């Protein structure tokens, strides 16, 4: 190998991929605690949920502080109808069995609590008309070299432009590598016979965190085919046994689409050489007396349509089956039994807990009510 061929890749790697390293902004303000509104009226099941919280410094740990004791109401345009959303848990204001008229416009009115050193403030959202979403045509998957890609497809009214927002919940059933045969309890080895005593099956659920907004602005028809929803890497626990995804679809207007797209652009896809600069994303909620006060979040509503998809490991190509025998060695039982309380055994051997107790990986042993298998 000559000197040249040695240094060539070096130069190129540095020049093209660059180096990424964590960065702490030196003096970003820490005292900005703006009101954050996350409100949605779901006309499909006539419920409304408004979550109020405060923004935090970037380096803050823990959950954001909920905004409690506020008075949250829905107001109908042109009428004096107001619907109060009571606070169900701290910072969460919700109501079921709402009566919202289609064709009417609603806005959110928030009156924050009056505290000894802070006076109450009034916030309003813009008026919104709630639209209903067409059904999802399909949720499909495709096995790729390094994982599974999930897509959604839908279509709207002919000769209209569709703006869509998707969210999803994922649930997956996974099994441990070994089925436990014995358990040590109080210094004794107990033989496991009942299925509910064998911790080999678990279910995990996660809610989507990505903003998925799509439109048909540049298409000749209001048709979305193969909009990528999420990608599951090959080694993911999600593909251990049965994977399920519930895709929720909402039709939005152009302004709402712009809000989510902007929010996505500034917080999810920045950093490429040609990405646009970040900027302040404006909310549709404002302080009634001080319009320059920073208010974050968005209020919207509409009907959600959903579609669920299941993928079984048996449907996936053979190379998706991961052989874990190497990472799950069987060790002989040794030591004082009393110190090994609650250890699961398989035929007298002790595998690592992750190979025999499914809850170690965060799931629960309770089967979700909708799970059909």
């Amino acid at each position, binding site marked *: 190998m000559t000197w040249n061929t040695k240094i060539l890749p070096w130069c190129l790697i540095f020049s093209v991929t660059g*180096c990424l390293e964590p960065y702490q*902004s030196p003096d*970003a303000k820490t005292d900005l605690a703006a009101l954050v509104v996350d409100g949605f009226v779901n006309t499909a099941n006539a419920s409304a949920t408004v979550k109020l919280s405060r923004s935090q410094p970037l380096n803050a740990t823990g959950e954001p502080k909920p905004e409690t004791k506020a008075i949250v109401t829905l107001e109908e345009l042109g009428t004096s109808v107001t619907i109060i959303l009571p606070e169900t848990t701290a910072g969460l204001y919700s109501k079921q069995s709402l009566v919202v008229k289609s064709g009417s416009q609603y806005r959110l009115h928030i009156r924050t609590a009056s505290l000894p050193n802070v006076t109450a403030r009034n916030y309003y959202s813009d008026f919104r008309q709630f639209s209903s979403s067409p059904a999802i045509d399909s949720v499909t998957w495709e096995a790729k070299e390094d994982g599974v890609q999930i897509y959604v497809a839908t279509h709207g009214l002919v000769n209209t432009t569709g703006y869509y927002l998707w969210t999803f919940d994922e649930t997956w059933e996974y099994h441990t590598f070994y089925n436990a045969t014995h358990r040590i309890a109080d210094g004794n080895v107990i033989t496991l016979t009942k299925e509910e005593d064998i911790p080999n099956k678990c279910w995990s659920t996660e809610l989507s965190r990505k903003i998925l907004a799509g439109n048909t602005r540049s298409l000749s028809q209001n048709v979305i085919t193969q909009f990528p929803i999420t990608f599951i890497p090959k080694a993911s626990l999600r593909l251990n046994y049965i994977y399920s995804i519930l895709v929720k679809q909402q039709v939005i207007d152009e302004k709402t689409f712009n809000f989510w797209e902007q929010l996505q652009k500034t917080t999810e896809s920045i*950093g490429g050489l040609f990405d646009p600069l970040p*900027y302040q*994303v404006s909310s549709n909620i404002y302080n009634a007396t001080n319009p320059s006060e920073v208010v974050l979040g968005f209020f919207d509503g509409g009907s959600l349509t959903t579609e669920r998809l299941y993928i079984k490991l048996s449907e996936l190509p053979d190379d998706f089956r991961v052989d874990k025998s190497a990472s799950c060695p069987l060790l002989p039982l040794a030591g004082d039994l009393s110190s090994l309380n609650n250890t699961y055994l398989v035929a007298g051997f002790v595998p690592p807990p992750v190979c025999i107790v499914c809850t170690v990986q965060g799931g629960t042993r309770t089967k979700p009510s909708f799970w059909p298998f």
Partner: protein
Amino acid sequence: MRRLYVFLLAASSFLWASVETNAQDTVLNGNFQAVPFERFVETLEARTPFRFYFDTKNTDSLFVTANLQNVTLSAALDQVLAGTDLHYAIDPDNNVYITQAREIMVGLPDDFYNTGQQSTRKAYEFDYTEYEKREKKRKAVEGRLYTIGPKTNSLQGKATLAGFVKSATNGEPVIGASVFIENPLIGVPTDAFGFFSIVLPKGKHELKVKSIGMKSTARQIMLYGDGKLDIDLEDDVLPLKEVIVESDREVKVTSLQMGLERLDIKTMRQMPLALGETDIMKVIMTLPGVQTVGEGTVGLNVRGGAANQNLILFNDATIYNPSHLFGFFSTFNPDVLKGVELYKSGITADFGGRLSSVLDVRGREGNLKKITASGGVSPITGRLTVEGPIIKDKTSFLVGVRSTYSDWILKQLDSKQLRNSTASFYDINLNLNHKFSDKDHLYAAAYISHDEFKLGSDTTYNYSDRNATLKWKHVFNNKFYGIVTTGFSRYDYSIGSTRTPLDAFKLDFSIGQINAKADFSYFANSQHTFHAGISTINYQLSQGNLQPAGSQSLIQPDVIEKEQGQESAVYIGDNFEVSSKISLYAGVRFSMFQYLGPKNVYAYQGGESKEASSIIDTVHYGTGKPIATYSGAEPRFSIRYSLPRSSSVKFSYNRMRQYIQVLSNTTTIAPTDLWKLSDSYIKPQVGDQFSIGYYKTWRGSVFEFSAEAYYKTIENAVDFKNAAVVLMNHHVETDIVNANGKAYGIEFLIKKSVGKFNGWMSYTYSRSLLQTNNAFSSEIVNNGAYYPSSYDKPTAFNLVTNYKFNRRFNISINMTYSTGRPITLPLAKYELQGSSRVYYSERNAYRIPDYFRTDFSINMEGNHKVKKFAHSSWTFAIYNLTGRQNAYSIFFKSENGQINGYKLSIFGRPIPTITYNFRF
């Protein structure tokens, strides 16, 4: 005659010498048998008054065998030295000089005074070496008295002398050479054609010519009247001797022009390189007042101006994107370049169309004498240039090709993302020039550059710059010449994706311009030189043509309506030498721009911010119908006042108008930038600059110092509303805000241009600010206060040093420091829809970390034999020696509910490169 016989007994020799009062008549007797020449000389010196001078290196293998019988020393030496290449000369003081290859002349040539006396001994004829021949010729022309104009008795008044300064080696014109006389001090520089015209008092003068990298020369002239004199300059055969810009050392002080940086290719070759290639843009970035938003970008920000406010000319053709491979290379092949001039202020009236600067890049014209080739191999590129005469001394060509093998390299890499990436580029230069006569000269240049890359993603980027120019120069007479130039420039770029067949698309853009101009220079008298001209440019822009790719694609074709415009200008300027202390330039350019149909133009509801929702009407304009017309005068003025002790002060003012701009909400010149003509809504940008400077040289121009301060205002700068959409926007005026800009700064430069140790050091403090002052809140950025532009980098420091150990080996070290550029930083985080989000600061309220870099390079030249098949050199360089991870950008991402900040560095480690260059 008194005779003295001397008997000598040496080991194997004897000698008699009979010495007379006149030593020349001494006769020698002796017998020598294989005596070393040195012993022979000792013997003679001991017995005769002769004293010998010789180099033992030349004589140590010479043994004398001779039987001398009553012979003179001349006869003895004739015998002794016969058959060797040694020669002797005896002077009247009895000194004897033994030399190799040729004899020393110890007296005047025979019969110098034409007395008819001839000496008996014939002068020895020998070959001069090439060097001596040239020196002799040079001395002959320098010593000769050139008579200019018809002989008259009256030497009253002045006369104009004009001509071309050319390289004697390849016949190419020498640009920027100083042609001057010293008493009184009158001088002019040669122009882009090597042409000069100088008005001198009639009479006898020594006309001196100096230029960078060339040997200085002089001509004795007897000026009776107007006339012509062409001057050939010798290349300095030892290129390392003139390492750093020597550019007429006094020029900075004595010339009228301020804010001009002139660099020649020899200087640029000495600078350490990032990727093994001489890059004029990177060198320019080390000059005061020139900034870039980040490494890996070619966009220049000159004195607080945007990257698109620079007029980049390559052989008079406009270059729209001077970058290759995301900006890691500039598109100028170093082998075809002659030099570059950057005008930062005091821009003369012949240039126009951009606010900030003019970067005038000149290619070479091709060797008129013989065919030569040059090239180089670096880790990423290979290049080859061939040039030579088609008709000797009349027509020459130059072809340069450069390409990359980065595609091949990417395939060899381990990373899957990189393996799926492609990146390739090439550029081709073709220059032709033909000399019809001394009065007519035709130049043709063509240039193509092309880039194509896909970086680990599914989107392919393509762009290419193509242009050609044809230029005819006619010299009417000594005082008056004209140039007619015509040409076109075309810049095409496209983005495409075929990831999913249903969304596969191709998005094309193009910008084309056809231009013509005529420029005239009139050297009226020793005080006035006038320049005047007219020009016109026709623009055709396509700002987006979205088409489906493949039959399955559902992408709906979408075409942004083409736009066209015509920019015309007339100008006149006068260089006026008021006195030996004061000279000034005054000029005016009158430019006019018409935005032309066919085009549909949206009309907006008055009293509202322009939004898609406020469109009330569409007005159609027919072909060639003016939609909007703008015009204005652009005054230009400079003055220089010379101070004692090689120093001067200068002041300049210029106004520029710009009718075409880039719309981009990224900070760099990206392949997706949108060029846009001024229209009914986007008004032309107008920039005014006031600049004042102080210049001084000392220690015989070894050191040079300059300080320049400037204040600039920009009207109608373009900035964007938040979340502006630029691509495929049919009404882009709705996403733009009008901003006013101001920029000010002070630049210091100290330079040592000669000696073993040379280089320069510059410090700049500058600001560049924008302000939006519009009626509607969506058009106001940062509440209408002044905010830093994206390229506002207040402090900049550059150090360029070069040390020559000897003529074949030199090292150089460069250092660059600058304040980080402004960014918009996140201030707080919040939760929305189950995920953490970021709330950002006001626009450009914070800065990325400061930039600092040190580069190092070693140049090794082959030997310096003039006659040699190929000259080659090696350059070993380390870019970013300290490995500092300079931030290219800072950004924050929301990942799995956490907000993580990242710093992206492109050249985050020392990058060694090795380059081989050749020329034959």
